[in-house]
């Protein structure tokens, strides 16, 4: 059968990869996405693995890519294939050359600010020199006032030109540094040189960019004039300590002017050079940005391949990498083909090959789905991934899930809205704006678009059955009830009509009831006051019938499991008592329901028996005089059924454990026990242990006990079987009642729908003049919004949840274990690389 019925056969295989061609082989396998690699070095930390250097390099490259461009990844539909090591080297070189370009541009930019600063300060100080007579020499404010004769620099009247009268040569230094250290520098200079200097500090008008750090700092330029060589050396040392940029300050005006013009021309040249460099850099970066997404994908693939190679182990001769993989048996030839291609691409002469190895572990589950079945498989997997080769409930869920949803949601109008919404999503499913939205809730709806499509379609069907369209009945066929006949027969007078607000249409009167409505519920019921009385009876019985059919189907599915795992004794010892119990009690209830529907009509409505009382009497072995029997011989039949059901309980409880006990005893006394049962022991353990949702892999794999341990396990088997029996028998009763939620939710939906119509929409019809038409517009808008918000979203989610619960608990606990784990193949799928 197709793979949706049960999971595929998966085997453990070993890949023998030549060291030279390992990379390209793994790359080929990644492109095809067939295998799941197992980690052969689990005890080795990430830093001690063989290819940790390559992985680190890839991560560095990824970091450079992410910080050098904010361009998000475009569409990955044509993701490039990985290339070899040499290409990676080229990529590294490209990236480093780009960063070095940036640095060199930055460096050339760095030489400009000081020159510009020097020029600027030159200009400002030379202008200040020109007006030196007017400006007093700046004096450190904290220096103590000395006597006028103490140092010439203190005197307020001395100006710069006065220095030329002094004997020593005055040389000036022009320097610049950051503003924060000005005070400290001043203080140190003053203390060190004891006032034998003239310093003037000018702050630069606009901040400039520091080439090393890139932040803009305001520079302070100062001009120091001093006497004496020693002082000069001191000043030089101090300014070196403070990391000032110092420049010589020419003495004469002419040379100053020369220097200025020289600096100006230098600035101009440099700025031209900078501009050109910036343009070139921009061009290079543009080209890189175009190629960046492809590079990024390449690097990601490379990293993934190295991570996989880290999981392989080297053999003794160090020439061959061994990898252990889980491989679907069907794909072994494809794997061999991929290995052959990989070896050919890397140019090695020796081929890599794959070899299947036996294992006692339980392999992972692989179920191949297409875009339609993926949604249904995912809701089954959300409960628990199927155990290896267990029967898969998903193909049945494709029909039963939307149907059970629709029973709770039945309304033509709402179903149609849901169907159209899903149809829009399905028709536009290839549009990238729908696929790549970032909103998680939208993505959840989009993933389940086929689910919603079927749910909507089935809801339209059940809406026609319940005859509800936005809570109004549709009169497709003429109603089967005739009020006129009843009125004529009873000759209701006006007085009678005035005093009796509700009138009964008696179906026993000929002509009033003309037979059942062809499809669905008669529209006259929407006008009747005892509408709910009729519908409740109908919906409750329907829910019970559907529930028992669903559960019976679940029990029957166990047949496939028992046959496949070679446990035929379970067919007789478990399946049979389970079916007998279910059918004898609840199958009989279904029979009673249908029998009463068929056999009893409106003529016997006064004396019709109550099924509920009969059912209770069946268990209590009593009888009720007022309750007529449904058919002759009802009491003995019921007694037999109850006895059968009670008898099946001990068979279910003790059958399998006793059988296994006998088998084991036979094996121990030396008689050759059937090999199949022994081999399947581990699986049996797994089946028993994995009856809960959260059974881990260890539980399933806990096979392989020695024969001595089997004696202890007998107690475990017994206990598990006892739990299973109690769960099943009590579950039959409680789960049948649980299906009554189908009735409850459909009632809630119908009532909510009616309330919305009565309280919102009806207000739009109240006004009879033509203004009413205008009033109807906002009223309808409110009705529409509330319908979508309350009835579609809230009720839809609620019905979805309850349908899901009915599948997960009531249906699946009859046959499903769900203790497996998924096969996660190593693949470069496009949507995995975002």
């Amino acid at each position, binding site marked *: 059968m197709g793979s949706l019925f049960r999971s595929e056969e998966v085997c453990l295989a070993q890949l023998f990869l030549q060291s030279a061609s390992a990379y390209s082989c793994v790359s080929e396998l990644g492109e095809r996405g067939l295998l799941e690699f197992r980690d052969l070095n689990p005890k080795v930390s990430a830093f001690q693995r063989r290819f940790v250097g390559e992985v680190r390099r890839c991560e560095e490259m990824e970091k450079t890519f992410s910080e050098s461009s904010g361009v998000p990844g475009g569409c990955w539909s044509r993701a490039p294939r990985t290339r070899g090591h040499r290409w990676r080297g080229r990529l590294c070189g490209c990236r480093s050359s780009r960063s070095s370009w940036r640095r060199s541009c930055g460096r050339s930019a760095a030489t400009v600010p000081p020159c510009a600063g020097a020029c600027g300060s030159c200009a400002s100080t030379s202008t200040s020199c020109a007006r030196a007579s007017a400006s007093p020499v700046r004096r450190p404010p904290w220096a103590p006032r000395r006597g006028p004769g103490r140092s010439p620099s203190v005197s307020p009247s001395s100006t710069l030109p006065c220095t030329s009268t002094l004997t020593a040569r005055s040389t000036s230094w022009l320097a610049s540094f950051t503003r924060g250290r000005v005070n400290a520098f001043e203080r140190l200079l003053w203390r060190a040189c004891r006032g034998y200097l003239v310093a003037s500090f000018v702050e630069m008008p606009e901040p400039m960019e520091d080439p090393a750090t890139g932040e803009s700092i305001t520079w302070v330029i100062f001009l120091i004039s001093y006497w004496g060589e020693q002082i000069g050396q001191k000043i030089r040392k101090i300014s070196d300590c403070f990391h000032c940029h110092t420049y010589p300050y020419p003495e004469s005006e002419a040379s100053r002017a020369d220097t200025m013009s020289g600096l100006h021309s230098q600035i101009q040249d440099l700025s031209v050079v900078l501009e050109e460099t910036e343009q070139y850099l921009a061009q290079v970066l543009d080209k890189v940005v175009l190629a960046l997404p492809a590079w990024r994908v390449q690097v990601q693939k490379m990293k993934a391949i190295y991570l996989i190679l880290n999981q392989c182990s080297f053999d003794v001769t160090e020439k061959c990498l061994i990898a252990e993989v889980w491989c679907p048996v069907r794909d072994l030839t494809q794997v061999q083909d991929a290995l052959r291609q990989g070896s050919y691409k890397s140019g090695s002469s020796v081929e890599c090959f794959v070899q299947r190895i036996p294992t006692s572990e339980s392999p992972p589950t692989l179920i191949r789905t297409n875009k339609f079945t993926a949604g249904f498989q995912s809701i089954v997997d959300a409960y628990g991934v199927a155990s290896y080769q267990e029967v898969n409930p998903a193909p049945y869920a494709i029909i039963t899930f939307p149907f059970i949803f629709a029973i709770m949601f039945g309304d033509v109008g709402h179903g149609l809205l849901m169907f159209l919404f899903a149809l829009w999503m399905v028709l536009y499913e290839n549009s990238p704006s729908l696929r790549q939205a970032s909103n998680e809730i939208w993505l959840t709806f989009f993933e389940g678009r086929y689910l919603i499509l079927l749910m909507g379609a089935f809801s339209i069907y059940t809406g026609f059955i319940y005859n509800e369209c936005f809570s109004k009945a549709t009169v497709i066929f003429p109603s089967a009830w005739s009020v006129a006949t009843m009125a004529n027969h009873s000759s209701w007078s006006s007085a009678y009509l005035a005093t009796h607000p509700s009138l009964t249409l008696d179906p026993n009167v000929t002509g009033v009831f003309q037979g059942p409505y062809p499809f669905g519920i008669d529209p006259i019921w929407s006008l009747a006051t005892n509408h709910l009385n009729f519908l409740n009876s109908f919906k409750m019985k329907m829910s019970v019938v559907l529930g028992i059919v669903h559960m019976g189907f679940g029990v029957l599915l166990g047949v496939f499991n028992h046959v496949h795992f070679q446990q035929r004794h379970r067919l007789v010892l478990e399946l049979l008592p389970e079916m007998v119990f279910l059918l004898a009690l609840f199958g009989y209830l279904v029979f009673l329901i249908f029998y009463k529907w068929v056999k009893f009509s409106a003529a016997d409505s006064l004396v019709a028996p109550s099924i509920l009382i009969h059912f209770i009497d069946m268990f209590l072995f009593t009888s009720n005089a007022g309750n007529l029997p449904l058919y002759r011989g009802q009491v003995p039949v019921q007694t037999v059924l109850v006895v059968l059901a009670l008898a099946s309980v001990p068979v279910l409880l003790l059958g399998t454990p006793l059988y296994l006990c006998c088998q084991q005893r036979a094996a121990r006394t030396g008689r050759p026990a059937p090999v199949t049962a022994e081999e399947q022991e581990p699986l049996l353990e797994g089946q028993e242990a994995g009856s809960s949702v959260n059974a881990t892999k260890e539980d399933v794999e806990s096979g392989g006990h020695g024969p001595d341990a089997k004696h202890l396990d007998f107690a475990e088997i017994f206990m598990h079987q006892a739990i299973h029996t109690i769960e099943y028998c009590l579950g039959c009763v409680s789960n049948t009642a649980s299906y009554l939620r189908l009735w409850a939710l459909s009632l809630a939906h119908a009532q909510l729908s009616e309330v919305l119509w009565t309280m919102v929409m009806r207000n739009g019809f109240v006004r*009879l003049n033509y203004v009413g*038409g205008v009033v109807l517009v906002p009223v*309808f808008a409110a009705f529409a919004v509330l319908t979508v918000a309350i009835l579609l979203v809230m009720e839809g989610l609620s019905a979805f949840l309850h349908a899901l619960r009915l599948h997960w608990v009531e249906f699946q606990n009859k046959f499903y274990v769900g203790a497996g784990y998924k096969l996660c193949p190593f693949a470069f799928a496009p949507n995995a690389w975002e």
Partner: protein
Amino acid sequence: MASLLCCGPKMAACGLVLSAWGVVMLVLLGIFFNVHSAVLIEDVPFTEEDFKDGPERIYRLYEQVSYNCFIAAGLYALLGGFSLQGRLNKRKEYMVR
């Protein structure tokens, strides 16, 4: 016609959907009221007096409600037209996003 609604593409899409639903549903409702469907009796604003002298007065009430429904459907068609215009205009104005 300029985009009078001055709202984004999503609002225009909502308006379009609402208008389409409104037109279809109100036209159908109008037809059903016009045919004097018994199922809709509760929605017709009748009084005690209207039940005298045969069903004619009830039928007139039915027809008036149906005309109101058609008017509302027409208004929704206009609204849908505006939304459509707005969407088409916006689409032309938008650069490649």
